[in-house]
């Protein structure tokens, strides 16, 4: 059963990713695209977690952890760029 569920959730996450990409592509504004990308980062975490579960390995956990950390930093950096231009001032 779990396998089927994982597959379904995979599909859900996949669908989410596609929706994110849709938003990323159509925008219309830059903040919209940033938001889409940020969401995408988080959805990839889900993807990796699911992948780990389906393979029964915890080897990829750190990747998920790092995406959580780094996705945040990059979102912040882009926003700062839009706000101030200079992200390290």
């Amino acid at each position, binding site marked *: 059963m779990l396998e089927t569920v994982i597959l379904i959730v995979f599909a859900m996450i996949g669908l989410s990713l596609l929706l994110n*990409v849709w938003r990323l592509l159509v925008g219309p504004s830059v903040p919209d695209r940033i938001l889409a990308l940020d969401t995408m980062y988080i959805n990839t975490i889900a993807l*990796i977690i699911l*992948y780990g579960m389906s393979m029964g390995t915890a080897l990829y956990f750190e*990747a998920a952890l790092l995406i959580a950390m780094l996705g945040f930093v*990059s979102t912040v950096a882009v926003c700062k760029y839009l706000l101030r231009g*200079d992200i390290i001032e």
Partner: protein
Amino acid sequence: MTLLWIPLLSLLGSIISSMTGKLTRNQSTGLTLLMPITALLMTISLAPAVFSGEVIRSTFSWIPLLGIDIAFRLDGLALLFVFMILVIGILVIFYARYYLSSNDSMPKLYAYLMLFMTAMLGIVMSNNVIQLWFFWELTSISSFLLISYWWHKAEARNGAIMALTITGGGGLALLAGLLLLGNIVGSYNLDIILASRDIIQAHDWYEVTLILILLGAFTKSAQFPFHFWLPHAMAAPTPVSAYLHSATMVKAGVFLLARFYPALAGTDIWFIIVSLTGLTTLLFGAYVALFKHDLKGLLAYSTISHLGLITLLFGLDTKLAAVAAIFHIINHATFKASLFMATGIIDHETGTRDMRKLNGMWRFMPYTATLAMVAAAAMAGVPLLNGFLSKEMFFAETLHQQLLGSMSWLIPVLATIAGAFAVAYSARFIHDVFFNGDPIDLPKQPSEAPRYMRLPIEILVVLCLVVGIVPNFVIDDILKSASFAVLGGYVPEFEVSLWHGFNLPLLMSAIAVSGGLLMYTQRHYLFQFHASLPSLNGKKLFDNSISALTNWCQVKINTIENGSLQRYLVLMFVVVLFFAGWPLFEMNQLSGQKPLTPVDVHNAMGAALLMIGAISTVIWYRTRVISLLMLSVVGLMVSIAFTRFSAPDLALTQLTVEVVTVILLMLALFFLPQNSPKESSSMRVLRDIGISAGLGIVIASICYALITRPLESISDFFLANAKTGGGGTNVVNVILVDFRGFDTLGEICVLGIAALGIYKLLINLPLYIPATDSEGRPWAKERYPVLLASISQSLLPLALLVSFYIFLRGHNMPGGGFIAGLVTAVAFILQYIAHGSNWIAERLTIKYRKIIASGIAIALLTGVGSWFFGRPFMTTWFEYFDIPFIGEIELASALVFDIGVYITVVGSTLMILASLGKLTANEPANAPSKEVNI
């Protein structure tokens, strides 16, 4: 051994004379002369042996593997030239003592002259053809220095360059010819070459070799059409001209003909090329000489003509012609040297060499005039003088050849005409200068030259007379032995004497003399005729072609190296496309034997996102920030791909690097325009699409071909030994810090150096700081958003903890120093973003460059540590310790190494970003950046 001393003494003379700057002129001259005189005495001591038919040799090993030795050889021909070079050299040096003005540096001239003498001696005495070429080129260099002695004069500089280029070009041809010759024979030894006539002439390369060697000879001895450098070499001081253009430089060319006569001559091609070149040069030189107003110009063309004569003689198919050639070499040297020196006196005393101004010099310098007239008569071939004898032989030999078949009669006729011209220009030399009324506008009041300045001329003129009157007595031995050498052992019976009875040659001489005198008296018709000819100026032609060539090159270079990076890149990609694509077409089947894996949904989706990201990056490339966001998608998907295909370490690395890269690009974007203008033409875009699509297809095909084939690699070793030999279960990490830790060491060096380089790029860089974004929006007021500032403070310890965790587990699980370092760096970058670089600078006082250095040092010294255990660099050490209460822990040198990696990564990344951040952080904006915190 004595043999070696002859050129060596001359070289020594060059060195000694260059150091006589502080001495008086007489001392300097005396010291300089000491060496060639000693050499001359030595030569004289060797002469009897040579006359008796002996060939003296002396060989020292130099580069045996290339067949290049220091090998000298003195046979009759060499002896004759050594005499000529030394005697005339001594006379010229003596003469120059009086010729040079007090402004001119005598040591310099002497040094160059002696160097030149050395080179000439080397040429004629070489027993190794490469060595011969060595000295051959040395004459080009020293003549360059001599001709440009008065370097402040443009004509001296240009003349020197022209001479160097022509003779240098000939030298290159000669080298090629000699190398071919050496290859044919299997040795560069002259003895062997001269004895291998049959092998050489039967060889396929004979013609090429011959032509190349002749090119060397002809350029050096100013044969038509390479003659034009010689008149312009007259910009040199007259002693130099006297030396170079009578006995030495130009004679090197004919020497070469004589030297290789036994090996190369005797074939139709030799006779045709050599005789026709000689004949043309003879006629051309003689004709032009008549029209030169400059005394030295006249002598220059006369020299060309006489060299043509000698060449022609070598090209006639009789043995006696060669003898005559050698004889004329001697005679030309004596009378031409004396004529140059006389010209030097006239120039010296009157300040001009223009025959239109010089008239009636007989009255002012009768003694010099007498000497010059005798020498000029010798040049014209007047009986009782040496020139007559050799010219007579020449005429005789022109009658005995069969070169042009039924048209062979043309050669004596043309020779006679040339003889007539020689008489005419000699007459002009005598009459125009010493008689012909009064001088016009002389710069100086002429008077007789100093006593000792005339001495060398007197000696030479006496020689002309003595040889002319009692030839057998004076030169029989040397002529015979030289001919013996040239003709390869067989010397035909000949008798050099004043009177052979009434015969055809005498008639030719008579016609030449009377025709010449007639020509001279009717010269105004000739001058008119000559003026009506289109002027063919060799120098102009040379200069024009050089400048045309230079211009052409500049245009070409500017079109090819047009400074367009895009072009350079296109070239590179096209080459890659070709090299990578071409073998693909040779393959039978792209796909390999490995069973394919079916596509699953995640892969399909990942690939789709990756491609969408990539294509979007391209589509939005003009709106840079959007493009950057799209690139992030690509980066993210690449790391997902790494997770998917069992590479967790890569995924982690890719993720961290990608974020830092994006941040960096974002920083850059602030200082760069935020949009790219549209400026490529549609054609260019189409071309670029073509190239990139082509490359994409080719690389994809290669990739596909690879991954569908099975692989046997060395990796099993790593899998098998990671735990036992490297002490870790994460094989990738063990490879990185142990099996191939050396790569990692290099890699952190790259990172560290990049950071240093970036700092270097940015220091004191005055930046344009945009006041608004690309749409004209001013920047937001709030610099450090409150919520971000406080949350990032809380995240820092957490991130450090995580990075420590990643670091520690690296050896056994995905992670390691590099990723940990980047995580730490990112945590700090967040602080930079949230608080600004000044805030960080106040709190972080260690200089980044020291952090980087210590990181590299730790990694390096960890590696060196294994030396103390007698092991090679970087040999791993690890041990498991059982500590009570805490449990078993592993200590490994690899861990220390990884600390080095970690520190370097942190230091470098932060240095890069801090350098950028620092650009705008300092107040006031205009002040140069201080070396804060680096």
